[in-house]
């Protein structure tokens, strides 16, 4: 890629940041240059962010309707999924799934709750609540 072809697309997913791209200048010499974004990259990042957002919204509704515990919502809210939460806590996936049950989560052991709070970066009262929106 030539220097003048390095996209400067002001991508929203760059959040006003810049990235360094390596490209060739007019003398044929390669160098790093700042880019404000690339539409192509923005498309795929946006796709991933939308997917996360969708999970959060669905989880919110499921918790609101009493089908899932607040843990389920906060997991997605913190951009995690069952795999990441399991790796971070060291809890087996099937035991975490049980905690997605509101009735089981209501009686959760304090030490286990603290582990969840630690990896999700939440306070005890936060993890038990669903935000108003």
């Amino acid at each position, binding site marked *: *890629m030539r220097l003048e072809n*390095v996209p400067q697309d002001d991508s*929203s*997913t*760059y*959040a*006003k*940041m*810049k*990235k*360094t*791209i*390596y*490209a*060739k200048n007019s003398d044929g*010499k*390669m*160098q*790093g240059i*700042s880019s404000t974004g*690339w*539409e*192509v*990259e923005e*498309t*795929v*990042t946006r*796709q*991933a*962010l939308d*997917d996360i957002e969708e999970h959060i919204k669905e989880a919110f509704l499921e918790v609101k309707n009493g089908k899932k515990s607040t843990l389920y919502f906060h997991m997605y809210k*913190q*951009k*995690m*999924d069952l*795999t*990441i939460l399991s*790796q*971070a*806590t*060291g809890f087996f996936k099937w035991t975490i799934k049980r905690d997605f049950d509101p009735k089981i989560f209501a009686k959760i052991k304090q030490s286990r709750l603290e582990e969840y709070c*630690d*990896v999700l*970066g939440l306070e005890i009262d936060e993890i038990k609540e669903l935000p108003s929106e």
Partner: protein
Amino acid sequence: MSKFQHIHHAHCESGVISSMLTYHGFKISEPMVFGISNALNFAYIPFVKIGGMPLVAYRSLPKSIVKNIRKNLNIQMKMETFSSQKKGEDRLDELLNEGKIVGAQGSMYWLEYVPDELSFHFNAHNFLIYGKKEDKYLISDPVFAEAVKCSKKSLSKSRFSRGAMAPKGLLYYPTSVPKEIDLKPIIARNIKKLSKNMLKTPVPIAGLKGLRYLAKSILKLQAKDKKYAKLFLGNIIRMQEEIGTGGAGFRFMYASFLQEASELFNNDAVLNDASKMMLEVGDEYREFALVIAKAIKSKKDIDFQAISKMLRQIADNEAKVYKKLLEFKA
């Protein structure tokens, strides 16, 4: 010792090493660090899922740049991890008080200076800590244009993030850096090693075999749900472009390395040709990304055949670069 200067790089780990060694009096570019630490690669590991998507990587394992630089340049580099957060915090302050600049590993997600759009759970992010002012740590994060500041709380949460590739508070810093190192034999050795690796990896998930395996898996998306297929394709391009690769899954950076290497060997023609070829392969990766982005946006059916064929073609052309590189004689 000179005053530390933040430099904006493409990639976190190679960027940290380049800034760190340059600060210690051994000036070395990011592409050179990347090249001589043998960091280029490709891996497609369908049974390891990240965010529900198979692992796709365009470089070697995290931390391998630090480890290979240490080994290949014969630099004394201390790497410290900690059994408790408190110990890790105290040790960092101690090192900063001694006037050291320190490389650190942490989770991107918990760093407060990372905007939401760019933050995700990746435990092997690397950055330099070069001081402390009032309550804030001064951080040179290579993928950021300017130096940044970070609170102790956020920094510790990041350094002691748990899960896959947990950093365990890792800090690293050189204890002695030679002023002069003859890079030539190191370059020659690693170019050869890389070329052989990429062409002949024994496992089907890495090197160019991995790339062809991914091309095959793209064909299978035909039978899958359309939304999944689009996320699968998007994930490939995110790993190729979004994850601080300097463009085209590190291929542009490697082309830059080959050019620099050619200059060191009195404008060696083989290396120079290989650099140009790698640059062209990089352009093909960018084209591949463009086609996928269009497919994601379009409501029409996706031509998986064409996308898969494109990737196979890239694998063929990239193979030519490594074959060319094997002709190189130091």
